[in-house]
């Protein structure tokens, strides 16, 4: 199997908590490498948050996908540096999140000790007249917002 094809297999694994995007679109897939002699595949991933409870499921899903593609002994390595940023979410990932009613993050910036809250557009009607309901949401990476224009609540993936 070619290196590109191998990466495609891993890249197609979906995030268990944001099921509309793949781990590649989310920016947590860092590397897929095949040992030229043993043929053993090593996948490198990085967590969104240190305590993200989805990591075990993601590791299992990667191993399952590779096993189905003929690589039953794949190894999944987790790295922490450089730290994941929401800036790594791809354009297609952002579009899919928005289509699923999850407002994608704005630019994360760096070195700010106190995060600024920028305007978040409603993923349902596109209005900018929105407000934060809760600084934390259904997962560690999201906050709960609502739209004052269409009145719909929505999740917002926080810039990190």
């Amino acid at each position, binding site marked *: 199997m070619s290196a590109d094809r191998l990466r495609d297999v891993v890249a197609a694994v979906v995030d268990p908590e944001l099921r509309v995007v793949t781990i590649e679109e989310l920016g947590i897939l860092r590397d897929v490498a095949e040992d030229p002699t043993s043929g053993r595949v090593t996948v490198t991933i990085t967590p969104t948050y240190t305590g993200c409870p989805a990591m075990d499921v993601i590791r299992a899903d990667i191993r399952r996908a590779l096993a189905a593609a003929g690589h039953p002994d794949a190894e999944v390595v987790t790295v922490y540096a450089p730290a994941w940023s929401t800036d790594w979410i791809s354009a297609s990932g952002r579009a899919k999140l928005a289509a699923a009613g999850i407002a994608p993050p704005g630019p994360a910036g760096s070195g700010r000790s106190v*995060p600024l809250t920028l305007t978040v557009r409603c993923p349902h009607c596109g209005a900018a007249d929105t407000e934060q309901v809760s600084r934390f949401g259904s997962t*560690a990476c999201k906050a*709960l917002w609502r739209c004052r224009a269409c009145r719909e609540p929505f999740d917002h993936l926080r810039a990190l």
Partner: protein
Amino acid sequence: MKTTVDHLLALGDDALIAAQRLGEWVAAAPELEEDVALANIALDQLGAARLLLTYAGELEGAGRDEDALAYLRDDREFRNCLLVELPNGDFAVTMAKLLFLAAYQLTLYTALSGCADERLAAIASKARKEVAYHLDHARLWTVRLGDGTAESHRRMQAAVDEIWPYTHELFLPDPTAPVDPAGLRAEFLAIVEPVLAEATLERPADDWAPEGGRRGLHTEHLSYLLAEMQVLHRAHPGARW
């Protein structure tokens, strides 16, 4: 300076005990959103604790993993600061604890993210981003309560007065650590003092400075916390789900 097991335990135990205390608020916070917030902050702390304790166990080389360190040590072997083990008190006390802890962790993790130990630097630079959000959360509540009603102001001031003495321990000199905490207090004050001022709260005077956590000498509160945290693991060693 070289990273020591004791130093990693201090960092990891701070995060672990803070996570356990914050978790006590689940289903008991003043509003549902705060249940979710404190649970998520606890989850971040637990994530950092797991990485730090795993590293401590590997550096120690005695075969102890994160679970052995979290569940099978007694109180005298914990190296966390006293601040994190103090009871939650009312919501204002919890927010005062979180404000001071997050400000301390932010300055410490920021300094550690540039240290020579690459593994520790990676953990610190990851945790730093999460702690910045915790700090912002505690800051908003401190201002809201301090600059709120007469009753919320009274309670927030009482909480700050109660917790302030325990912040001195965080900055005890440790010349052997990768980053000496003694050099971080000025930065901590530069974060915390403007928050207290905005919240119309008085910054307490520096006098009483209880300490001992870094040497394993804890308040009576830690033993009760550990009893609850460790009972399942000790009753069913090696149990999995």
